[in-house]
């Protein structure tokens, strides 16, 4: 993914808990929403704990370790910001907290593909695309740097 400033990048403009998630990222933190009562994680954030029903939510710093759950290489882009980036990889990762999110691999070279496979361990690194948007991306953890 380009490190250049990207004025047309698709950018969350939501309210509520989702806005808080993205605000933490802009401030350099990946935080996940968790139930204050039973400590069940949820992502995307939700208003009520699906496990215990509590409305009491809290934000907890993520361990930023994950497993690649699925990956695809996109050849036909549909969003203008990605039109000149194909082919590119998109991933679903399972964070060690047990929640899943869509992301991209980083760093990427030309072509914009990674060597990541399903089952690989990754760490989540933060990448500021614009002043308004910092994305959590997946970087390989080499065998020399085993997950703790």
């Amino acid at each position: 993914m380009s490190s250049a400033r990207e004025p047309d990048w698709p950018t969350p403009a939501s309210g509520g808990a989702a806005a808080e998630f993205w605000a933490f990222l802009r401030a350099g933190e990946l935080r996940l929403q968790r139930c204050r009562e039973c400590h069940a994680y949820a992502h995307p954030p939700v208003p009520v704990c699906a496990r215990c029903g509590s409305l009491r939510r809290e934000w907890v710093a993520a361990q930023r370790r994950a497993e690649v759950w699925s990956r695809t290489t996109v050849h036909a882009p549909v969003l203008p910001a990605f039109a000149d980036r194909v082919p590119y990889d998109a991933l679903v990762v399972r964070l060690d907290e047990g929640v899943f999110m869509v992301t991209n691999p980083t760093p990427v070279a030309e072509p914009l593909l990674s060597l990541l496979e399903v089952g690989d361990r990754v760490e989540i690194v933060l990448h500021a695309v614009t002043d308004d948007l910092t994305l959590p991306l997946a970087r390989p953890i080499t065998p020399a740097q085993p997950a703790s």
Partner: protein
Amino acid sequence: MLPDAREGAVRLDRHAAIVGIGQTRFAKDMGRDELDLACEAVLAACADAGLDRREIDGVASFHVEQVDEIDLAYALGFERLRFMARTPSGGGGAASVVGLAALAVASGAAGAVVAFRARNRSKFAGYGADPNQGGRPWAKAGTRLAGYQQWHHPFGVAAPAQEMALIAQRHMHVFGTRAEHFGAQAVAQRFHASRNPDALMRRAITLDEWAASRVIAEPIRLFDCSLEHDGAVAVLVTGRDRAAHLRAPVVEVLAHGQCDGPIHTDLGRFFAETAFFGERTNGARALAPHLFGVAGIAPSEVDAAMIFDHFTMAVPISLEQYGFCPLGEGGPLVAAGTTRWPDGGLPVNTHGGSNGEAFVHGLNHVPEAVRQLRGTAVNQVAGARHVFVCGSITDPSGALILRRADP
């Protein structure tokens, strides 16, 4: 008498029947708006049934439908509209929209309910601002995102093909499913379509041609994808007793059930909650035993299946989730030719499905089920008595088991 119901599966054969099917031509850029197309399909269904259009008193449609119930009622001169309902999740409603109609007549809420879907996908037609009208939804998303889109679009995941690719790849990883298994379904459906005069794609393809078609998002290739065009379909449902006095052979709604399920537009939630990979039992996989239970038949007694196929990968996964085969065996089942007419043991999408006949959010699959049970399909399964129909497997959805009435 109330219908027999078990865990959300409802037996309706004594209460509801499909009495009419209608559809427009399917083509690109027809230059007709959705109301125009819907009216033609509904009138065709009325003519098929021999039922006066003014007697329709209920409308069931998809939440993405652009034609308002009241506009359809005024245009077609319904004397009174007593029942209106919509299904969620696009193709998730492919079977449920007919199920709603059946539940309405079974409860007495209405006497003749039409389920319909009309699409105008022309990019340059005079469509409105609704993301579901004309063009492509993601083209209207802009760069300021809320809702589901904020979790996908910043990472370049925005089209259903990209979302479904990530689901398919996990299935391939867990079970060893191969892209060629999806290709085998694409080839089978294009063969079915090649014999169907109503189909958009009249040329059969080989597996080599499938493999040569361009990759959209691995493992999904162009020939796995549904078609984009204009057209409409209508399905007319009345009470079972009334059906016996109408023109067409009676097709009973033997069983219907709806099911929850995570939606492909929210992959974070999808992977946390899906039953696809064996960790859980929810959605279609939970519904299936009760659906077949109230119907009083086993999946092996189904003669043909019409499966919502936004992408061909949906066919083997649906077969697994609804219990036609164990988890992970859907791909090999398709590759072995099981879903291919005429020799396969369970022909699927015998009209050509969404990559061969047309994409009308799967509602075109219901008339094909009815034709099979009437014995009038171009790719007729000899003696078909039970046909299974299901909506999108990657969304909140539902299914039907339809049965040919004894003469």
